[in-house]
């Protein structure tokens, strides 16, 4: 730092340490729960210090949930979502910030509204769409009489089908649809000074070159933050994969399996509360996102990015 401010430094450290402790407390408790056996973990009061069963529980969780292939699947899906998301959000935000057409705000709001109806609410009809992703178009063709027309004209009956159940596409595409990324990029793009755009235009650069050579490099920290968030978000997906993946052996995701390990309280009678195994599984499931976060840290660092425009 520039000047010497010992008191403020101490205060800073204190604040950060407290914040860290508070935030990590639940993680600690989960860790402790994973290190005990069945009876200890169900006893009261809650254990604060770890036991010695960690390795046993981890092994049990790994085999019970068949985590190997699932980790791979979840990784594939998450990377797919990250790549898809940062690309699509960037170009969409680009399209609504740097062009002056009347539909800009309308498009932005159209995209933004998708944040406001949670998936749980629309899951049943969304499943129907995933079962046949071309259904909306088929329906439109039917309603406008096009299907009939095409059939009359060429004898070909149009029957569009694209079944996304039990597939990576079905897992990835709906998750790319959210508005967070576009909104984030919009905020950032709005801070780009006009002079930069003018300069590019004077250099004869078209919009796409501007996007690729100027905007994207400038957006590096945002991309890093967004990529981190999206990776974790899709890694932790539960409800949607539970629904559309019935071929668990091949396409199952880790957090769905985690849900399977956590005892369900609804069954009149309930199963054995294997919290120690469930928490061991949770710890394992947590590791890749944390690794990703650690890895992506570097891109948040000042100095790597030349932002002096």
């Amino acid at each position, binding site marked *: 730092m520039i000047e010497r401010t010992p008191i403020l430094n101490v205060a800073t450290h204190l604040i950060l340490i407290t914040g860290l402790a508070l935030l990590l407390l639940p993680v600690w408790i989960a860790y402790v729960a994973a290190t005990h056996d069945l009876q200890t973990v169900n006893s*009261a009061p809650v254990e604060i210090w770890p036991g010695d069963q960690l390795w046993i529980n981890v092994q049990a969780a790994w085999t019970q949930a068949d985590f190997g292939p699932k980790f791979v699947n979840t990784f594939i899906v998450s990377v797919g979502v990250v790549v898809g998301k940062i690309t699509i959000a960037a170009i969409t935000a680009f399209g609504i910030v740097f062009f002056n057409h009347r539909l800009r705000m309308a498009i932005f709001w159209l995209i933004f509204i998708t944040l406001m109806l949670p998936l749980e609410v629309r*899951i049943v009809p969304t*499943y129907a769409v995933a*079962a046949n992703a071309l259904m909306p178009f088929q329906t439109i063709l039917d309603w406008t009489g096009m299907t009939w027309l095409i059939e009359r004209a060429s004898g070909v009956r149009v029957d569009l089908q*694209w079944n996304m159940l039990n597939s990576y596409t079905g897992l990835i595409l709906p998750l790319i649809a959210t508005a967070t990324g576009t909104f984030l990029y919009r905020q950032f793009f709005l801070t780009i000074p006009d002079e930069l755009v003018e300069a590019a235009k004077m250099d004869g650069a078209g919009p796409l070159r501007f996007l690729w050579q100027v905007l994207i490099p400038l957006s590096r920290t945002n991309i890093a933050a967004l990529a981190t968030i999206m990776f974790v978000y899709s890694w932790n997906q539960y409800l949607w994969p539970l629904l559309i993946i019935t071929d668990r052996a091949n396409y199952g995701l880790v957090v769905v399996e985690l849900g399977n390990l956590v005892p369900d309280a609804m*069954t*009149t009678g*309930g199963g054995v509360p294997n919290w120690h195994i469930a928490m061991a599984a949770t710890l394992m499931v947590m590791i890749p996102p944390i690794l990703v976060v650690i890895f992506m840290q570097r891109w948040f660092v000042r100095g790597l990015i030349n932002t002096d425009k």
Partner: protein
Amino acid sequence: MNIKITTLALLATTGMAGAAAAQTSFEYWYGLSGDLGNVVQETCNRFNASQSEYEIVCVGQDGYEAAVQNTIAAFRANQHPTIVQSFDAGTADLMLSGEFYPVQQMMADYDIEIDWSNYFPGISNYYAAATGELFSMPFNSSTPVYYYNEDMLAAAGIEEAPLTWEGFAEALVAIKDSGVDCPYAYAPSTWIDLEQFSMAHNIPVASNDNGYAGLDSELLFNTTQHVQHMENIQSWINDGYAHIRTAQSGLSARDSFVQGECAIFFSSIADHNTVGKIAPEGLNWEVQMIPVYEGFERHNTVVGGASLWVLSGKTEEEYRGAAAYLSFLATPESEEFWASNTGYIPVTQTGYDALIDKGFYDAAPYAGREIAIRSLTYTAPTNLTRGIRLGGFIQIRSEWTNEVGAALAGQKTMQEALDTAVERGNVILDRFARTYAGKTFP
């Protein structure tokens, strides 16, 4: 590893081998999760190993509601399984939609012999038509009992676990006097406090024989002995003879019992297995039928748990496969497998008898579960003790829970709470009736 990017195919459900398969594959979506889910998977594996004509693919859905809800979503897209495990309160909609293949009829259609009278009436009636024909296959059935700490009761001078509520109340006082701070770990539960309570006392929960006779039912539980019972519970809590212990408050009733903190808790017999596994050394515990008030004749309790429904819209081979699986489950070996790996009780008389003959219930860890059978078969079911067939029942249950919670928190009297619950519940019933206007339960 194969990365399938797109699947351009018609109705590609898993396991549907288009070409040549000698094996017909069909799906079964179940709701049990965790340990119990693993045992269900085992039953599927055992079925697949026992024959080669059919292959069942069992998919766990992490909970009853998710199982039914996901099945509905799949059904609307024509991607549904052949069999779904649906819990008691979730069946009204399915019944009225008619989108199922009644199992009794299915078995008859495929010439599979099943002795339907073999099923305990307290179980089969819940899932049967007014004519007695079974719609769904009973599977994991349980009934409530109460668990008590033998040592604590003995120390309080109680020789026999009470079978009347009056005796129960006295026992609570005695236990408290003997130094136990928490005689009764109480967790509000419609299933136990309202439904099974009413069954055992042969009093109605709703009109129309608890909904069996028509859709224009109305709730009645704010006018029956149930009110008195809830008021008693409230006074026990106020006087310290009972403590509220729920999972959300951190230590559930069962855990409080297992830790030796509380002397009594009520739960399904299916918890028998769990308690056995997590109880520490030295905890001496037993189960007993739920009490009834003096002046009421004890009647049978009814089943909880879930049953297996066969859905419409599938091919004949799949139905044959489903029939084969269901009849596999009905064999004594399967029942023994299920009863020994979980806390659930057998659903047929012969299955139960076979276990008795084997001495299954003579010793720990299974001893005591026959109490549940006794409770289930105490009398033949009457009109009021067949079960409950009301629409929107899950929401009604949650109205009860919320109102009772408000009363226990001191916000209103119990009578007011139950009145409000009935009022709001009737709105739900009316809405249900309007949704299915013109239909009746089959």
